[in-house]
């Protein structure tokens, strides 16, 4: 176990550096082939050369290697890596605000959204998966199968837009006309976007939309794993001992079946962070995701690079923790 942890940690360092270099090389290539990104901020107008030069230098795009096509710009990469790891510096935006500050302001919303999404997909997904797995081939099984295929095939932004309009606006308007419904439900839970007055209730629906993508996979994974385990010898032994059905299912089957599901949920935190970009844009949640899309629309590239670098580091860290957790959780796996 100890050797596995050390090996995994040693593998982690080149992966982090490699991913950061990939991100760096992609951005450098894009700049080398399409010119100074600062021009995008001005749109059609031609900025005075001095102003252009000043902004370019301030944002760190003045390096001459960004004009040579194909040059990997190692010097710039070293600067960025040392900036990130030694000074916790992820760059600045046009108004000279630190990207770390922008993220610090936005992160509570994204974290709340992620928690709602993960809890939703874990509770509903595992319940549906257990229900379908215990009755293989039945109506319940087919229902879960069909609805999961359907959920997988609906892109998250389509789902988000349709839910916002149907549930948030149309159904919400009906509720808001009724006098007897409390405001938390009518104006909070069923609001078509994020409301600062109801910081938790109005995040519930966006969180569910975000969680619904992985919900299908969670349900399928639980279903397959339950179906495998229910035929296992140790479950038959438990039944032969005369244990109650509740205990056989709840303790002997479910606990063993949940190992792959929990790992999947852990890995999914990473993809949910990326998915939050879409969900937050649709529901106007002032989190990290909306920060990224707004910066993408105005062409404020330093913000995007800083935030994405930060997100990638977090995702890598989460994946590392999940891998280590997996080694602890599953007694069948021995890395020696």
């Amino acid at each position, binding site marked *: 176990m100890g050797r596995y942890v050390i090996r995994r940690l040693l*593998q982690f360092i080149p992966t982090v550096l490699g991913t950061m270099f*990939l991100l760096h090389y992609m951005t450098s290539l894009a700049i080398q082939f*399409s010119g100074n990104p600062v021009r995008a901020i001005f749109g059609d107008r031609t900025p005075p050369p001095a102003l252009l030069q000043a902004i370019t230098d301030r944002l760190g795009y003045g390096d001459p290697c960004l004009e040579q096509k194909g040059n990997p710009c190692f010097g710039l990469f070293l600067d960025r890596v040392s900036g990130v790891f030694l000074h916790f510096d992820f760059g600045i935006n046009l108004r000279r605000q630190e990207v770390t500050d922008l993220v610090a302001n936005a992160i509570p919303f994204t974290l709340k959204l992620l928690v709602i999404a993960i809890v939703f997909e874990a509770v509903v997904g595992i319940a549906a998966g257990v229900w379908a797995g215990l009755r293989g081939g039945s109506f319940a099984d087919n229902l879960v199968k069909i609805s999961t295929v359907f959920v997988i*095939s609906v892109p998250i932004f389509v789902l988000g837009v349709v839910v916002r309009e149907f549930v948030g606006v149309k159904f919400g308007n009906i509720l808001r006309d009724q006098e007897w419904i409390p405001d938390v439900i009518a104006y909070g839970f069923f609001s078509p976007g994020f409301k600062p007055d109801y910081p938790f209730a109005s995040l519930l629906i966006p969180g569910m939309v975000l969680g619904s993508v992985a919900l299908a996979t969670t349900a399928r994974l639980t279903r397959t794993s339950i179906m495998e385990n229910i035929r296992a010898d140790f479950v038959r032994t438990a039944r032969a001992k005369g244990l109650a059905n509740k205990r056989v299912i709840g303790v002997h089957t479910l606990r063993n079946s949940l190992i792959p599901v929990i790992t999947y949920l852990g890995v999914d935190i990473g993809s949910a962070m990326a998915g939050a970009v*879409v969900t937050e844009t649709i529901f106007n949640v002032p989190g990290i995701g909306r920060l990224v899309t707004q910066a993408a629309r105005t062409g404020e590239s330093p913000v995007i690079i800083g935030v994405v670098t930060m997100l990638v580091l977090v995702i890598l860290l989460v994946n590392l923790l999940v891998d280590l957790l997996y080694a602890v959780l599953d007694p069948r796996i021995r890395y020696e």
Partner: protein
Amino acid sequence: MSDATSAGAAVGGAPGSGDGRAPEKKSRSGKERNASLWADARRQLVRDPVFMIAVLYIFVVGTMAAFPKLWTSQDPRACSTDQSRLAPSWEHPFGFNIQGCDYYSHAIYGARPSMVIAIMATGGIVLFGGLMGLLAGYYGGWVDGIISRLMDIFFSLPFLLGAIVFLTLIKQQNVVTIALVLFLLSWPTIARIIRGSVISSKDLDYVQAARAVGAGNGRLMFRHILPNAIAPMLVYATIVLGSFVAAEATLTFLGIGLQPPAQSWGIMISAHDVYFLEDPWLLLFPCGLLIGTVLSFILMGDALRDALDPKFR
């Protein structure tokens, strides 16, 4: 995406007896049940109504993309603003969009960019990812070490985030750059599938026999080992086509994909999502086409996996 990965990997473990010439030999002996993997799969697929409906739908969308003139004689760019958001009628089955352009022809012409991007990106990942997986699995050792680390690196950059960074900076958001970024960020999955499949079959007896006879590395890889990996690759490629169609629309919706005046389903959705309550059909038609296409690809992939996996027989 990750479900598609596990879908492909599920088949990866089973080295099929896929060899193009097998069915001829078997069919002469007259025994229908013992045909090759591919003949069995074909028979099962033709009888599967879900698969046939999905194929038909993809065929329809494919003809829309390849020959839009077959489906409509209207020009999607002949617009007049006094027809803005007119409801569907017989002459114009999808009505008019916000700029007063015929929405039906817009939807027909919108199929092309999605399909072209999906096919280009999938072709790219099959060729490049397949080659990388083949090399890593066959040679092992330091080749495998380098390629696997490279896959880890590309794998840890989430697709959406990488695409946002690249497309914002490149500023030329057209079919080629979108296909490029899709290809760049998703080749490792297919490489992993192929690598696993190659590793599981490279030490089989018939490969050893071929090596003993004196077959070279290239011949061993492409004639003897690669055919085993084709089944899982085909399943994954079908599913990934669907996810690329969805990815193109998602990027367009976020404002970093295709830009108007190009026609695409993603543009149709993002331009009209605020008119949903007054004119829901403006959103329902493109969403329906998009979901139908993605769903068809996923169902086709599922059916292919069931048909090509000998364990399900």
